[in-house]
C-alpha cells in the first residue's frame, strides 16, 4: 500500500510517503506558523524523493486535530484537494493518537497545551477531549499512564510523578505513516476535530432581541 501522510495540526508541517510499512521519504519542518505556504512544497519534494506518482497513491492520511484551527483546516483542505485529483481514499488521523503513536511503550497519555488554562488530552483507551487544567490533572492521575507525550506533558507531569515526560511538539512522521496504513476505511471525508466551539456569541447569547 502506497500512502501519503500529511500533518499541519501542531508545530510542524509534515509530508511522509510510505509503502508497505517502509517510509520512502519524509519532509518535516518545525514551524509555529506558515503551514499553508509550506505544505504543498514539502509534499511535492517528498513525493519526488520517493519516486511516487500521485495517481499511484492507495491512501492519503491527514491529521484532523485537535490542534491549531488554522493548521487543521490547511491540512484537511490540502489533503482533500490531493485526494480529489485522483479519487484517492482519504482518512483522518487524530493528532493525540499520532502523538501517542510517536513513543514506544504501553499506557501513553497524549496531551496538547490548548492555552487559556485548558489541555487537550487523550488517556490510554479514552477519547480525545478538552479539559480545564485541574480536570486534566485529575484525569491524568487516575490514567496509570507510564508516558506523557505532547506539548502539554510538562503541565500534567505533577499528576504522574513516575511517568516519563516527552514534550515533543508534533508527531513523529513514521507514526503518521503507520496510522495512515492502519486506519479503517473511511465512511466519508474527514472533518476537523476542534473540540472547542467558535469564539463568538449568537444574538440570543448577547441578549439582542429582534
Amino acid at each position, binding site marked *: 500500500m502506497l500512502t501519503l501522510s500529511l500533518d499541519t495540526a501542531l508545530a510542524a508541517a509534515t509530508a511522509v510517503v510510505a509503502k508497505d510499512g517502509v517510509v520512502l521519504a519524509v519532509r518535516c519542518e518545525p514551524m509555529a506558523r506558515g503551514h*499553508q*505556504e*509550506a505544505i504543498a512544497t514539502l509534499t511535492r519534494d517528498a513525493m519526488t524523493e520517493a519516486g511516487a506518482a*500521485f495517481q499511484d497513491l492507495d491512501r492519503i492520511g491527514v491529521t484532523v486535530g485537535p490542534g491549531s484551527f488554522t493548521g487543521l483546516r490547511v491540512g484537511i483542505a490540502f489533503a*482533500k484537494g490531493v485526494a480529489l485529483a485522483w479519487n484517492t481514499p482519504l482518512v483522518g488521523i487524530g493528532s493525540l493518537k499520532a502523538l501517542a503513536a510517536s513513543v514506544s511503550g504501553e499506557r501513553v497519555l497524549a496531551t496538547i497545551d490548548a492555552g487559556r488554562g485548558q489541555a487537550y488530552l487523550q488517556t490510554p483507551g479514552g477519547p480525545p477531549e478538552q479539559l480545564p487544567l485541574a480536570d486534566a490533572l485529575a484525569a491524568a492521575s487516575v490514567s496509570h499512564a507510564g508516558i506523557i507525550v505532547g506539548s502539554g506533558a510538562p503541565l500534567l507531569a505533577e499528576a504522574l510523578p513516575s511517568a516519563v515526560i516527552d514534550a515533543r511538539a508534533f508527531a513523529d512522521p513514521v507514526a503518521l505513516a503507520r496510522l495512515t496504513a492502519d486506519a479503517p476505511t473511511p465512511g466519508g471525508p474527514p472533518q*476537523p476535530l476542534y473540540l472547542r466551539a467558535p469564539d463568538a456569541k449568537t444574538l*440570543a447569547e448577547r441578549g439582542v432581541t*429582534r
Partner: protein
Amino acid sequence: MADRFTVLGIETSCDETAAAVVRLEGERVEVLSNVVASQIAAHVPYGGVVPEVAARAHVELIDGVIGRALADSGLDYDGLDGIAATAGPGLIGGVMVGLSAAKGLALARGLPLVAVNHLEGHALSVRLGEAPAPYPFLLLLVSGGHCQLLSVEGVGRAVRLGSTIDDAAGEAFDKIAAALGLDYPGGPALERLAEGGDPTRFSLPRALLDRKDCDFSFSGLKTAAARTADTSVHTEADRRDLAAAVQGAIARQLSERSARAMGRYVEMQGGAGRLFAVAGGVAANRTVRARLEETASAHGFAFTAPPLKYCTDNAAMIALAGAERLRAGMTDGLAAPARPRWPLDEAAARDAPIHKPGRKGAKA
C-alpha cells in the same frame, strides 16, 4: 487549443463556498459550471458573518463543491488547463481553505496554480455576461466588503481612483438594516422595506463634501441612521421612510463619486473606453443601479453590470481571472501566501510580493 484556457476557480474569501469551471477562447467566455454553497444560514444566529464559523463551513464544504463544479462542467481534470483560487483579500481562515485545496489539486494533477486577487475577480466579472466588456472600463466595485472605483485596463492592470476610508457600502446597508431590526443579510431586506417610503423625510449627513477625490465614507451615515432609528422611528411608516432615506443617501454618494471618477477616467484614457461597469452585491439594489445608470448616461458612458449571480461572490469570476492570467503567462508557486489584505493596484507587482507574515498594510 493554444488560445483556449479552461480553468477551475475556487472562492472562499467570505461566506460563500464556491467553485466553477470557465473556458476562455479568444474573447469568448463560457461558464461551464458555477456552484455556490451559501453559508448564510450558519451566520444568521450571530447576526453577521463570523470568521471562525465561515472557515469551519468552508473546510467541510470545499470538496463537495469542487466535485460538483467539475461534474456539472462535464469535464474531467484532464480537461483543465489550470486551477485558480482566491488568495485574498478576505477572511484569512476561509481564504486558506480554498487556496490549500487548489494547491492540492494543482500539485497532484500537475496543473499550474493561479492565486487570484478577489477584487480582480469582481473587476473581471463584468466579462462573464452575454457580451464580455472590452478593456478598458471604469469599474465601481460595491459589495459588503469593498467599495472602490478602478480604471481596469486589463488583467493585472487596474488603477484605483477611489476607495472607502471606513465602511463598505454593503456593510453600511447591513448594519443600518440591523439597527432597523432586519435580519442578516440586511441589504436586500432594507431594499424591500424602503419600497413606498419617503426618502426626503429624514435628512442624513453627506460625507466628505469638502473633498474633491473619489473616496467614499459611510460610517457617519451609519451612525446617524442608527441614532435616527433609536430616537425618531416608531411606526412602520417611519421605518420605511428611514430605509428609503438610507438607500437614497448611499445611492447619491455612489453616484457623486462615480461621476467624479468618470472625469478622471476620461483624462486618463483620452476619451477611449467610455464604459462604466458596476460589480458587487450592492449592484443588485435597484435604486442604486438606476441612479448609477443615470449618472453614466449623463456623462456619456455606456453602462454594464454582470448578471446578478456574478455580482455577489462566485467562483466563475475567479476562474475567469485565472484563465486570463494563465493566458498572460502569470502563474504562482506552491508557496503562494493567503493575504488578508491585498490592494488590487499591487496585483501588477505581485510576482515580487512584499508580503511577510504578520505584516498587514492597506486593506484593499
